């Protein structure tokens, strides 16, 4: 494994340096039919799950076949995507904002060969490489984060929980039988890189044990004031600690009862690890949305306070999700998002029809606005 230089000269980093050039220009990448009709689209139709046609004012059409992307993706897989795009789509493709892949062709007769090609490709384990779907009133890809594959703060895995969930929701990825679109998102810790706080269903990794304190190293590895000020609940205080060997070191003290396990201190200081086999697990949230359609965007609500990490398939989690999707599918009106449905029937009925337990954890007690989530009304259902 000999080091091969790119041309970069570490002695003279500024030599020939190119910076601030930004991304490639999007126009380079547009398929012909897109470039030509941009801004002049007339309408579209979802012909079948995963297959869209967009019709331009010019009469031109672009057919899009959308396939599930498992966004943790190898170059081998990307190369295979390229191969398909070269074969069917003049070497163009796009990714969606939810990490699906869209293959576009400019005439109807190119659709079937493309679909057949996509469907034919499977991994040895049996999973589809390119499942077609993810459009309309169904489930699409789960936006997610790193989890155990790469991050230092997760309370659960991302790719694993997503695979487990998409397997159970797969039918709804390939159908459009739900009342409206249902967006599932995943974030492996409270930093919420998936911004799951406005999703129909959100899977969230959560710690439940206050940080351990690695007194021996803390002052060496961390800036104590930063760790202290990182805590939203002011649970951390500076402290002097005597180690087993009698040495006195500067460190911190944590008031465990004030901790809500956000991990923000750990982000600032590696000597405060939280991760724990039993402590860590999953919070499920539901009823959020982002679109402004009919109702305003809204936050997801915590509906299951905790489920343990059950590797590799998190059955308690997928079970709770399945219950919600089924209850929603049975109960909601056409065009009604999950959160709008829950509000219409009342959250008390939501728990009933989803067969989920309501526990004290689900009552807000964070900051003053918690008050607004309590019930200031005699209107409720028994």
């Amino acid at each position, binding site marked *: *494994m000999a*080091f091969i230089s*790119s041309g970069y000269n570490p002695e003279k*980093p500024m030599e020939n340096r*190119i910076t601030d*050039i930004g*991304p490639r220009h*999007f126009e380079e990448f547009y398929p012909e039919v897109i470039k030509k009709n*941009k801004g002049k*689209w*007339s*309408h*579209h*139709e*979802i*012909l079948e799950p995963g297959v869209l046609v*967009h019709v331009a004012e010019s009469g031109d059409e672009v057919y899009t076949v959308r396939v*599930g*992307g*498992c*966004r943790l993706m*190898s170059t*081998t897989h990307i190369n295979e995507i390229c191969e398909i795009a070269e074969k069917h789509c003049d070497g*163009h493709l*796009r*990714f969606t*904002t939810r*990490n699906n892949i869209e293959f576009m062709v400019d005439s109807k007769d190119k659709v079937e060969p493309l679909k057949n090609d996509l469907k034919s490709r499977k*991994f*040895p*384990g*049996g*999973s589809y490489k390119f*499942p077609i779907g993810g459009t*309309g009133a169904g489930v699409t890809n789960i936006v*997610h*984060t790193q989890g*155990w*594959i790469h991050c*230092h703060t997760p309370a659960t895995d991302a790719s*694993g929980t997503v695979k*487990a969930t998409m397997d159970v929701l797969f039918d709804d990825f390939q*159908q459009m*039988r*739900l009342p409206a679109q249902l967006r599932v998102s995943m974030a492996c810790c409270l*930093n*919420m890189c998936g911004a799951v706080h406005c999703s129909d269903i959100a899977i969230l990794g959560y710690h439940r044990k206050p940080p351990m304190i690695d007194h021996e190293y803390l002052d060496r590895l961390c800036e104590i004031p930063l760790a202290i000020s990182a805590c*939203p609940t002011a649970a951390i205080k500076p402290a002097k600690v005597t180690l087993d060997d009698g040495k006195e070191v500067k460190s911190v003290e944590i008031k465990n009862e004030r901790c809500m396990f956000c991990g*923000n201190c750990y982000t600032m200081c*590696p000597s405060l690890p939280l991760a724990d086999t*039993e402590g860590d697990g999953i919070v499920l949230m539901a009823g959020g949305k*982002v*679109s*402004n*359609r009919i109702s305003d965007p809204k*936050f997801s609500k915590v509906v299951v306070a905790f489920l343990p*990490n059950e*590797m590799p398939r998190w059955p308690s989690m997928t079970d709770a999700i399945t219950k919600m999707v089924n209850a929603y599918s049975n109960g909601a009106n*056409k065009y009604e998002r999950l959160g709008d449905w829950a509000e219409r029937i009342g959250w008390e009925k939501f728990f009933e029809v989803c067969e989920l337990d309501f526990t004290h954890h689900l009552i807000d007690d964070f900051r003053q*606005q918690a008050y607004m989530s309590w019930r200031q009304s005699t209107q409720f259902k028994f």
Partner: protein
Amino acid sequence: MAKHETPLLDQLESGPWPSFVSDLKQQAEVRAKNEAGVEFQIPQDAVEDLLGVLELSFKHGRTHWKHGGIVGVFGYGGGVIGRYCDQPKLFPGVEHFHTMRVAQPCGKYYKTSYLRELTKLWDFRGSGVTNMHGATGDIIFLGTTTPQLEEIFYTLTHDLNQDLGGSGSNLRTPADCLGSSRCQYACYDSNALCHFLTNEYQDELHRPAFPYKFKFKMDACPNGCVASIARSDMSFIGTWRDAIKVDQDAVNKYVENDPGYPANAGAHKGKDWGPFDIEKEVLALCPTKCMKFENKTLSIDNANCTRCMHCINTMPRALRIGDDRGCSILVGAKAPILDGAQMGSLLVPFVEVNPENDYEAITEVIESIWDWWMEEGKNRERLGELIMRQGFQKLLEVTGIDPQPQHVAYPRTNPYIFWKEDEVDGGWERDVVEYRKHHLR
């Protein structure tokens, strides 16, 4: 044969959804075989070890990655996330395993020639594992060693005409919906605005001068396909000011259940919801109830329409967005830490999106906000938190925007108004002795 046993992960190879485990295994195998004869610049078995460390996490229920140190490319304050394994003896191939964020093209369209250049580079100098794409929008190169960072950057910029994306207390790589490139709902060209702002603010993107991260996202209409209202400090959402355009013939096609006119463009085809009923499905669901359908004519009281998109989404061949187009700007969205999540709050109800003058009206708002935030924001304080701390009024003041009822969902419920001294006749200085003449103790 695999380097590590992965019995738990193996169970994730079954089931219909694409298995990332299968993909990683295929990648491990490709690297092991190395049929292309790549002179791998990081351990050839990096992916084997990645599978190994992940399996260990599946066993322990805990991550095995440590905090990243400060690694990066010269002169840039972001674009690289350092990462080290906490069991380097067991998994030397991923002992150093940094990610690089490569700025994605707006709209996320690609030519395969370009993608193949990327994969080639990444096979050569990295793990060959990516995220397509990261949650912010970047192309993520997942896993390389420190010495490779500058090399990759050099090749990217010199050979691929491609820059890194953001990380750290910077502007982050802006992201957009596909917009007018392929969507009839687009109220502006989100790809163009996204590209312009990304380039206009390269300095802010690469050199940390902000209190914390800052994100732009562009949704070309209120449907919000890039979720900007939930995920960006500044969210540009297309809208229009004039009337929705109605094609009455097409409306009647929908009403008549013409098969060429499926409700919601066919999004509900998977279930039989009965024949389309314009009263129930459109008029009754319009949040403002501003539509009427009488004598085969649909009329919209546009002054009361809040442009929620529902009717347009439902009858896309009959209804079109208006012609006086622009965008609304919402600010402050962020993830929950520290004080709870925020969605963007409406700051600019309408602004033109005009490439002719370099989007002047938009950059003005951006820059006045940045000036304020850079002046007043505390370390690690997001814009949304600053607005909460100093008040929405302050935001209006620094941006020079007039307060309007559009800014609120409802006016304040508490009368705790902080009057300023110059707003109150006679000012605040008073003479208690004079007062006591009229009001004995």
